[in-house]
């Protein structure tokens, strides 16, 4: 009843089937990038991709996810290379960052189906709440990510995680590759 795929891995949750997906992701899978902000679908901080749709994971139970493909912020890319993630850093979108996983997932789903969204389409897709006021930058970042997806622009704004010290030292003279040598 509660078998489905999360970030390309098969999972079976031994939880109450009525448990909202949000809490299975956060408290059972430790995928804490997906946030709780309201539990009523208002804020969108828990937005994930289910079979290509942007869904508030607080409003869908794990039973309803049976057999479906769930992608969270952790599964969007392995190295922050998704155009939306790159555009988000290039446009300096996040402030506190708490709502941003949900924003990024909603934007990624929007752009997958439409690489030239109009303002009205962006408005309709981005119904998440951000209290820091990142809205103007979100619009700009979505347009920028769209340009990347259309092949009109390249961005390298966010470094991948886990850069090895040797590689860092090759790029940054002030870093010592091996302090003991």
């Amino acid at each position, binding site marked *: 009843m509660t078998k489905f795929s999360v970030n390309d891995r098969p999972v079976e949750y031994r*939880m*109450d089937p009525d*448990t909202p997906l*949000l*809490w*299975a992701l*956060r*408290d*059972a899978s*430790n*995928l*804490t*990038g997906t*946030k*709780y*902000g309201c539990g*009523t679908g*208002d*804020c969108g*901080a828990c937005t994930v991709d289910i079979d290509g749709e942007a869904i508030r994971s607080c409003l869908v139970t794990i039973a309803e996810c049976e057999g479906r493909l769930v992608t969270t*912020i*952790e599964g969007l*890319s392995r190295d*922050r290379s998704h155009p939306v*993630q790159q555009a988000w*850093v290039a446009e*300096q*979108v*996040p*402030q*506190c*960052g*708490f*709502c*941003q996983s949900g924003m990024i997932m909603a934007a990624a789903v929007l752009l997958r189906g439409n690489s030239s969204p109009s303002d009205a389409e962006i408005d*309709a897709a*981005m*119904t*998440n*709440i*951000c*209290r*820091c*006021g*990142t*809205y*103007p*930058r*979100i*619009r700009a970042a979505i347009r920028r990510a769209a340009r990347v997806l259309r092949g009109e622009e390249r961005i390298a704004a*966010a470094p991948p*995680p886990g850069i090895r010290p040797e590689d*860092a*030292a090759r790029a*940054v*003279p*002030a*870093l*010592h590759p091996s*302090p003991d040598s």
Partner: protein
Amino acid sequence: MAGIRDTVGTRARGTPRVTRRSLLIGATAAGGLAVAWSVWPREYQPNLTAAEGEHIFNAFLKIGDDGHVSTIVPQCEMGQGVSTLLPQIIADEIGADWRTIAVESAPISPLYANTLVVDEDSAAFMPRAGVPDFVADVRSWVRREWAVRHAVMLTANSSSVRMFEGPCRDAAAQARALLMMEAARRWDADWTECDTQDGFVLHGGKRLRFGDLAAGAAKHEPPAQPVYRASSTDPLYGKELTRLDLPAKVDGSANFAGDIRLPDMVYASIRQGPFGATRVKSIDKRAGLASPGMLYVVEHERWIAAVARNWWAANRALDRFAPVFETAGEPISSERIDAALTRALAADGWRIARAGDVEGAMEGRTQIAAEYLVAPALHAPVETRTATAAIEGDRLRVWVATQAPAQCRAAIARATGLAEQAVTLFPMMAGGSFDACLDHNVAVQAAIIAREIKRPVHLAWSRAEEIMRGPPRAPARAKMIATLNSAGGIDALVSRIAVPSTNHEVRARLFDNMPGDVAQRASVGKPDAAAVEGAAPTYAIPHYAVDHCPADIGLPTARWRGNADSYTAFFTECFVDELAARAGSDPLSYRMAMLGGSPLLAHCLLTATTLGGWEGGLPGSAQGLACHSMRGSHIALMATARQSDKGLQVEQLVAVVDAGRLVNPAIARQQIEGGLIFGLAAAVGATTDYEGGVATARKLHQLGLPKLSQSPEILVEFVDSDRDPGGIGEIGVPVVAPAIANAMFAATGRRIRRLPLSGQPL
């Protein structure tokens, strides 16, 4: 450990020169201030931990053998970018390569006391006027000493850069001197002839990495006074560097207090009942414990927490426990709040600020008056109050976002009966806050639950708890009275403001550990200059007075992004607009005529109206203005807004800001944009009614917060300036509501005198 000896309180800058003799005299003159020898400045050593191969230079800096430079940030990162700004100041002064900069949160220590905010706060409490300068100086010195001794590391009042730019720069300069001394020793050169750049010490053609010098450098004795780096050809200061926290905020890896995961951890939700002197009366234990996934119930006299295998199961179990609360006294309601404000406005108040002779100037003249009403404002951060706590033997560890870590730790220690030294607090990033993290109840509750169940526990308030139990920014009612000169300009202005004595409450909760209802009652009737901050006009008005009329509304209130300025600017800027209309003047020229003494604000206003295409404030133009100065910064805003069949439409906001020198213009721009949208939310919503002691709103959508589709076009410009940095986190907030209200008046001829603007007309 070598390195500079950090001294707090003995710095030449910012501390009045007081000898013991003048202190004693001052203390006596100040009315018996108890000043013991123990307030004398003392030296504190940094309590940092060095990793292997890392060397502690001072309270703000560690350098590794590998060349990384760890900067220590003593402020809560809540989106304002402080964990990039302070490192940027340090990196610039020491001459580091930006790519080698690492960031750590500071441990609790007197070295990181925010003496500026304590001093400003105290000055707002007890205005300096009427107190001889030397007494004021001594009082302020004593307050700073108090702040240091109690490690008051407040994050508040847009003070991060204003407070810490100096200490960060000094710390970096001292560390730089040590690195140059070590390099000079190896080269047999004069260290003062060395320089630094991109993480190297340079001399002639020679250069050495910081990393290669760190171990030796940390053993030198620094110069008595910091020697600053000559300005670089390519300074990091002023550059639009990418925030250091962004990569982790786009892949879900940035950890907040609720993202900590520990072995054997369980999840808790809480119910606290109505505001007031509330006790848990009964719960249905049998039904609650039978709820699936339920593990423990923790019963406190003021709240009940359910602990389960996941948070949702815990929160669901609370419904089944069906707690019944009992509240002593008359329950809080919107009606009672409004009645208390009206009553306070009619009663005597405290005169907080004055100039000239308002009574004399107003006598026998036609007085123009208007009343304004502002609803309570909720913080409503997307992250609800959250903390994680774990007992390990006789030690307690707590992860929480807090704007007052030392006071948070003290409260936890008191509630759990542990010594403060047995409590380790991990300062986390806040998911918004907007000053909500000045309250640390959630950390205390998590600690109590962890102690009770002897397992690591995560406690998150539900959204309904957050709305119901987060004390809001105070509601306020004002009566504005003016008389005009023969040219229609303002000759005299009285701003009478009925509002609770919020800052007494905040202090009592924060420093005296009082429950909200007790602190509220204790504050009743007290004069609170900070509660009417920003009401003294920036305009050249010959006679003015600002009165605080303390209102006993029963509801605990809190600090909030923009604090009192968020309503005082609404009162003043709307009323000035009314007077301009009455005088038949253009609201721009009416203001400009009174801004001769405030050239920086006048410049902002002229630039904003030029950029925005000001049409002279003609009826039907839908354009409105507001300007304001606070925390050493100035802002002017031009709004274009109109009523349509879809409701209030804010089409454009054009802001011009003079915030002095900008450490990072990109972050400054984020802060102004964010402040404007926060102000927009408060102009249209971000509030709730109260009934029977609780908020009537339970869900986020009931707060009317703007979404992307309601976000206007925003244009932000900064004035080039070499002034010392002003505050930037809050100043965007206060101007929005009055600029929109003024635009709506221009568009419709209808004057809205209440916030939110969407409410019934006053």
